[in-house]
């Protein structure tokens, strides 16, 4: 799994590439959180267009980042999940809490 970051005003844009599972999500969490603290941002956009696999660990990863952003009054949005990833996201009703641009 690879992660890269971009900043768009007060939003941190996170591009995740590869597979999100329990193994890779620990690393993703640490890297996103330290970037979120370092940069002058309050919102997060997670771009999932390059994610080839995601299991329920991804739900935990996204919900956890949603909490971080909310705690300082920010928002979290998901960009371009694949059909399969979207299926997992919908299962957890996460789509009622965050903006989901499919």
């Amino acid at each position, binding site marked *: 799994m690879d992660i890269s970051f971009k900043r768009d005003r007060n939003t941190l844009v996170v591009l995740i590439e590869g597979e999100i*599972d329990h193994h890779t999500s*620990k690393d993703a*969490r640490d890297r996103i959180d330290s970037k979120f603290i370092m940069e002058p941002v309050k919102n997060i956009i997670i771009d999932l267009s390059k994610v080839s696999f995601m*299991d329920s660990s991804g739900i935990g990863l996204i919900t956890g980042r949603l909490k971080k952003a909310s705690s300082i009054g920010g928002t979290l949005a998901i960009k371009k999940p694949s059909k399969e990833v979207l299926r*997992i996201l919908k*299962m*957890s009703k996460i789509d009622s809490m965050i903006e989901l641009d499919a």
Partner: protein
Amino acid sequence: MQPINKVKVEFLSKSSNEAFARVVAASFVAQADPSIEVLADIRTAVSEAVTNSIIHGYDEKEGIITMACTLYPELVEITIEDSGKGIEDIEKAKEPLYTSKPELERSGMGFTVMETFMDTLIIESSPGTGTRIVMTKQLGNG
């Protein structure tokens, strides 16, 4: 029904083996030439069950996980087993969003994903002995 093929894999409860287990199950089932969707569902369900053995069964300590895949003409059966701490209340464990490890950012959706993505799911578990998950999936090419 006579199985067409079968395989049994034992591996350490290391998180890097989550991806390994998915590859093993998918390349075994691929022999039956299923659809990409069926393969994706199997990869996801295997990932959930193996992750559970690592995190919950063995509390991220070392243990052995066994995965067995049996291929029948139109169906695959996948069993994932650990000798870890076991589940006290299986009904509660199956509830969507229930997790005993929120501090690890678990979503409590593992069993729900397995149930949704596979055709049948059986959970056998007893505290102190371990957990055994048996899942089947129609391959839809019979």
